[in-house]
Each structure stands twice: as C-alpha cells, then as structure tokens.
C-alpha cells in the first residue's frame, strides 16, 4: 500500500524525531526536573504516534500511545522522572526504532515494556485514551452521550496527497459500530464548475461517547491548520445549558484550539524554523555543477587576462565573486557538525556504563566541528568501535582505579578539531593504557611480526589494527561483535585518513582519526616542477621561501637543510616524481604542515592559488595514495593533487622527523 517514496518521506520525518527523542531522554537523565524536556519527550512521542498511525504503523502507534501516557503522568505531576523511568524509556525507544525499521520484534516485548513503564510511573499511567479523555470531560457537567463532528477539508486536500476516505475509516474505527457518517454536499459547485480533483464535500460524523476527544482530533492533526472542524459533545438534556458556552468556545475557530495545543505543547514542533529535506544525490549534482562552473570560470579569467579588456575583466571578476559565493554556500549545505552523530555516542556511553558496571564521565569536545555529511556518516561505526574498546578494555573497574590512586570515575573524551587541512577526531580514555611489550608478544604469537623485530612505539601500537590481532582476553558481550579494529583502519583509510594511537601505560590511551577535509572543492596552490604541474591544498601550506643555494646542488630525493635556524626535511619533487624539463632560476621551497611535522617541498615555480575541483582518481590509480585526486586547470589540462601526509609517509620522512625530534 505504501509506495517507496512515501516510505522515504516517513523515514526522513521520523529520523529527526527519534533523534530528538533520544537526546531529550538522555538529557532528562541529567536534569530530571526539567519540565521543558518532559514536554519535548511528550511532543516527540505524540508526533511519532500520529505520523506512525498515518503511515499505517498500527503497532507502533499503539505502543507509543502507552509510552506517551507515562510521560503524560510526569507532565501532569502525577509522577516524576526517575533513572528507572529513563532506563525503561530508552528500552521503549529501542523498540520504537526497531518497529520503524520494519523489524518485527516479539509482541510480548510491547506488553512487557508497557507494564514496566506503568510500574515506574507508579501505576499512574493507564492507557492514554482514558488519561486524556477525563481531562476534557471533567471540565463540563452532564453526561456525554456522544460527539458530533463536522469537518470540511481544504479544496486542494487530495492534490496534496490527502485521503478523506482513510480519515473516515479511521473515525469509524474509533467510534465503532455506533458511528454515523453523513456527507454535507451544500458546498458543491454547479456541475459545470466542478473540478473533480477539488474537494467540496463536508462531513458530519456522530460518534458514541466512548470515543475520546483526543483520538478524534488526532485524525486531523496534520490538517487542522487548513480545515474547518468543529467537535461538540452531545450531552444529556439536563446539562445542555451548561454545555452550551463550552460548545461555543470549541466551535469558535481553530485559533482557540491552537492556543490550547500551544499550552499543551503537544503539537506542531519546530514550526519556527523552516527546513527542507533534500536527497544527497541532488546535493552531489549541485556540487558537480558548481565544480564545472568553477572550472569554466578559471578558464574565462585565463582568457580575459590574455585579452586585457577592462570591461571583460569587470564581468569576469563579478562572475568570480558569484561562483565563489555559490561554492561556499553549496559546501556549507553538505557540512554537518559532529553533533549530528554524538547523540548516539551519548546513548552508547550510557549503555556501556550499565553493561560494564564501570562508572565514567563521557565528555564531548568540539561538537561544532563540521565535516562532509558522507564522511560523518561513515565515521559513526569506527567511532562506536573505538569507544566501546576504550570502555571495555581501556577503563579499569572501580577497585583497580582506587588501588592505582586514580579518580574513582573514569573519563572518556570524544573530541573533534581542525588541524591544517585535516580534521582530528580522537577518543581518549584515562584507563590502563596499552602495554607495548604485551602487544609485541601477541603480534609474534599471531605471526604478524618476527620475534626480533624492532618497532617504534607507534609502529607497535599500529599492530592493534592489523587483521587477526585481538587483545581481548575474553570475548565479552561488548567486544566480539564481528567488527575488528582492522575495520576501523580500513574505513578510515577509505576516507583517505589515518589512525594514530598514543598510549601511556597506566595513564590511558588516545585513538586519533586524522581525516582530510574531503570536500569536492578546495583552495589549491598550483606549482610547477620541470614540465609538470601539481596542486597541494593551500590549507596545508605554511609558507614559501626561496631555495637556499646549497639545496640546488644535490639531487637526492630527500635531504635536510637549515631553514630559519631550524632543520627541515626537504623533498625534491623533481627527483621524487621523476620530472624532467628546464630548471627554474629562482626555485622555491613550499613549507607544508602534516601532523606535527614540517616538510619543505622543493619546486621550480609557484603558479598561484586556485579554486580546485577535486576529481576522484579512478580505481586504476586509487591505490596510488600520494595523490588525493586530480583537477582540471583553466587551460583544460589535468593536474594531480598531492596528498602531503601520504607523500611524506611514502618517503619515510615521518619517522625520520620524529627521530630527530627525540
């Protein structure tokens, strides 16, 4: 019944809701008295229920109905937020997620969780149907004998995808056998003026007393703004006089009911900011086109420079400015802050604390650090793995920590920050740290290295990420889920990043993911070596200096010279890349930063800085990781983009420099 597109809209709508729900629940755990959060939870649940019911998720809607009741009890002051309530709520949340994903968990879980929810709210949470209804009825006297509902939908209702028959069916389901439906056709235009796609019929529905007002109103929750609706209780004769004024209020217009809902805070979340959901492919499309525009613009400005026509130059500059602005805006759309995934880590930390019995603080730093959305999504799994390892294997239990003179509670920090052209995301724990000797022995036992191999500290730690290496002494519930640390490595490397591990025995470990800001367009520095041209990300460039005399003489690919009273490793790109062609009279050294090291690249000439559209290398070249991609220059030629970190690694300069530093 539900087509794929509808399903997708539903998924997108609910995704934001469940994320918000989880955040609110976790936050509520910290500040149980925060009434706003309780309202937020209630609101999210309510909307989820409505959306779920609308898209045919009956079981989901029924379950949330009771979940919502528990928070209704809290909201009305009949119950309070307790850690138990949060714990059960999180489990209920999990069930919701499973149901949303179309899984079919055993039915008795619903009942179990319902019972648990009702227990933690001290049994004050009966089915919401009753919880809601008395509120409405209590305010008026006289027996309610039923409801009269009159509604008229907007003319374009069917064009926007509404289905009045489904609404009527829903009403009949609420009201049961006693429901009477009557069509009001007064609004119908003359046959000549009738457009079949427009909606002119109104309905009067009479429902029996046991239908709850909230349920009836729920049927229209997404359309109330545009439609006319009046819902009047039918009262027994003696109380009709009293009921009359109330009826007037209800019939008045939707403004009154809107106010009531605003007070309830139960509906229409997020109407303040207008947002649009756009598919990632469309964004990629826009990005591609902006890329082409930037290339065309570079070509145009090349031509204009040759023609030296001031009028043309003016136009070119204008276009340049516009293209730049367009590029920035497009890129900003794709950038997502880390905070978009930290919610699930909060949750993970909460669960891990419960499962391992280890008390720890989970700190998140640099949540505003932005990364490309696709990168962020792919990072989630590796980070979950590292985080789980940090708690499971890194942190000691309470007794051990006290014995070692450490703070009782451990601390795990997830941080994200920029570093040159890279983003560093690290997970740091203050646990027992990694034992290089133990890792060495294990690696020998697993046949990963020779017994007498001499490795640096970082090389030893890097063994952890080799396939087939696992230090887990025993398989716990947390580890052994089939995702090894080697997967972390391969995922990060697929994103052209690297993993660095630092650890102090007894003091803790830090896993750092270094990722390039893999954006489709970067600011690049174009340089010439012999006959060839190469680009490096401008963000990695620390400075440009004239080549000192003594550097021009040698021809080793790498060397070390003194520059500004500091020893700097130099890479002669002509030799490293085997370039030919004339040597420039005034060669330059481009100083680049990678990680903690500074390297000089000896080149012939600096051409300038350009908007560089990164074109991924085909699978045929992608194993050649010293180039992060290629770009098309203004004259139509292709130039390679150097991945500075990988280039340094390929020449073994990263270790060289560390040895010098030591």
């Amino acid at each position, binding site marked *: 019944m539900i087509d794929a597109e509808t399903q997708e809209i539903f998924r997108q709508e609910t995704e934001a809701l469940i994320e918000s729900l989880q955040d609110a629940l976790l936050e509520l755990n910290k500040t149980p008295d925060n009434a706003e959060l309780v309202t937020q939870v209630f609101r999210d649940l309510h909307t989820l229920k409505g959306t779920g019911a609308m898209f045919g998720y009956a079981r989901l809607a029924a379950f949330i109905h009771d979940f919502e009741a528990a928070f209704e009890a809290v909201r009305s002051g009949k119950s309070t937020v307790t850690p138990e309530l949060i714990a059960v709520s999180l489990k209920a949340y999990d069930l919701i997620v499973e149901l949303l994903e179309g899984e079919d968990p055993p039915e008795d879980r619903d009942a179990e969780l319902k019972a648990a929810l009702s227990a933690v709210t001290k049994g004050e949470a009966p089915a919401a149907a009753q919880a809601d209804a008395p509120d409405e009825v209590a305010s008026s006297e006289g027996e309610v004998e039923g409801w009269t509902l009159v509604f008229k939908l907007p003319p374009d209702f069917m064009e926007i995808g509404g289905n009045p028959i489904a609404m009527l069916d829903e009403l009949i389901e609420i009201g049961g056998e006693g429901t009477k439906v009557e069509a009001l056709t007064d609004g119908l235009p003359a046959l000549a003026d009738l457009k079949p796609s427009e909606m002119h019929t109104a309905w009067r529905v009479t429902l029996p007393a046991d239908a709850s007002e909230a349920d009836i109103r729920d049927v229209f929750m997404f359309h109330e703004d545009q439609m006319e609706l009046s819902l009047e209780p039918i009262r027994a004769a003696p109380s009709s006089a009293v009921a009359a004024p109330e009826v007037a209020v209800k019939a008045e217009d939707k403004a009154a009911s809107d106010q009531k809902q605003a007070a309830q805070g139960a509906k229409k979340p997020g109407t303040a900011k207008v947002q649009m959901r756009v598919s990632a492919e469309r964004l990629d499309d826009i990005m591609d086109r902006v890329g*082409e525009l930037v*290339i065309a613009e570079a070509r145009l400005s090349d031509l204009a420079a040759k023609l030296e026509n001031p009028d043309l130059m003016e136009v070119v500059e204008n276009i340049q400015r516009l293209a730049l602005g367009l590029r920035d805006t497009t890129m900003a759309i794709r950038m997502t802050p880390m905070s978009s995934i930290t919610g699930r880590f909060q949750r993970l930390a909460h669960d891990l604390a419960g499962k391992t019995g280890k008390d720890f603080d989970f700190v998140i730093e640099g949540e505003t650090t932005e990364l490309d959305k696709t990168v962020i999504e792919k990072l989630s799994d590796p980070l979950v793995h590292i985080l789980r390892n940090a708690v499971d294997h890194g942190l000691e239990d309470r007794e051990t920590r006290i014995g070692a003179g450490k703070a009782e509670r451990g601390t795990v920090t997830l941080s994200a920050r920029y570093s040159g052209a890279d983003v560093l995301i690290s997970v740091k724990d203050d646990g027992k740290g990694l034992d290089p000797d133990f890792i060495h022995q294990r690696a020998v036992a697993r046949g990963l290295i020779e017994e007498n191999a001499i490795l640096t500290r970082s090389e030893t730690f890097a063994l952890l990420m080799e396939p087939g290496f696992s230090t887990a002494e025993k398989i716990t519930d947390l580890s052994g889920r089939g995702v090894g640390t080697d997967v972390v490595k391969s995922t990060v490397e697929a994103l052209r990043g690297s993993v660095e591990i630092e650890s102090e025995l007894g003091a803790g470990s830090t896993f750092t993911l270094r990722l390039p800001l893999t954006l489709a367009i970067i600011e690049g520095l174009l340089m010439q070596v012999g006959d*060839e041209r190469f680009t490096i990300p401008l963000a990695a460039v620390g400075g440009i200096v004239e080549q000192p005399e003594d550097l021009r003489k040698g021809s080793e690919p790498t060397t070390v010279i003194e520059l500004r009273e500091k020893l700097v490793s130099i890479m002669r790109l002509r030799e*490293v*890349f*085997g*370039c030919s062609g004339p040597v420039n009279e005034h060669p330059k050294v481009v100083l680049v930063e990678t990680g903690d090291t500074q390297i000089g690249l000896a080149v012939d000439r600096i051409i300038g800085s350009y908007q560089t559209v990164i*074109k991924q*290398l*085909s*699978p*045929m*070249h992608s*194993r*050649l990781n*010293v*180039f992060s991609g*290629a770009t*098309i220059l203004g004259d*139509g*030629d*292709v*130039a*390679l983009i150097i991945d500075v970190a990988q280039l340094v690694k*390929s020449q073994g300069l990263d270790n060289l420099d560390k040895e010098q530093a030591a």
Partner: protein
Amino acid sequence: MSLSLISATEDELKDLVAFEMGGELMAVPTRILREVLEPPRITRVPMAGVYSAGLMNVRGVVVPVTDLRPLFEMPDKPFDIDTRILVLELALGSGNVTIGLIAEKVHAVMSMDPETVQPVPSVGTRWPAQTIKGIGRWQDRFVNLIDLERVAQEYIGAAHADDEAA
C-alpha cells in the same frame, strides 16, 4: 573449432573494433567502446605503474589512459598522426570504469567468424596467460581479442603498489 574453448561469446565477435598495437592487430568489442579520440594532452602520473600513461580530460571528466604495450612486451612508439585513444567503459567488480587505451592506429569495425576463432595456444605464447580471449582472422591477418576486463583487474590496477616503494 567449438566456441566452448574460448571465452568470447558469439555476440562479442560480431561487432569488434580492430586497432594496431606494436605491429599486431588487436580487437575489443564495440559494446564497450564509447568513442575514439585524437590524443589530447596527457598528464603523467608519477609513481604509477608502467601501464599507466597518465590522465586526460574528456569534456570535464578525468579519465585514466592506459598503455598496454609493456604488458605484451611491445616496443614503445611515440604518438604520431595515426595514434588514437579508445575510450572504453569496462564493467569491473567495483562498478563501471572508464579508461582510455592507446592505439597506434584504429582500423575499422569488423566481425569475426566464430568458426575461425581459436583459443590462445597454451605454449609458445610470449603474452601473459588469459589476457587474450581468442585469435581470429581478418583480412589475412591474425586478430587478438583482448580480455580487457581481466587485464584491467589483474594488471592495470595492481601495477602501482609495487612501484610506490621505489
């Protein structure tokens, strides 16, 4: 000769483009041929393997150019008036890949009679095993039908890793 001995299908043999490489006549199915270009400027990729001639710009798309002459131990020949680049779309395991292939001269679209197509003899050939699907005849010359998908997967992509350490 029965078809079961060679790995080319009858359909593949009907539409072939014949070109010259190292004095030999080679062929690939037109099914995978997207266009034939006069050689544009090609950017060399340092540290890449011998089969990589570089990268070219085909209307805003960066396409790798491959030179298969080293694979078949053929002598190098500078680009001349007859040199063309065949733009081919290969279906590899990882998805479709567009590559350019250097051809010293492009002859024509032709078809081979399946009856005349023979498998590569297992001894006496100097070419790497299974790079040729079969050998047929056209205008009194032998035509070698290249198994480009296999060549791309086993040679072109794999050639870089070893060179990097150098």
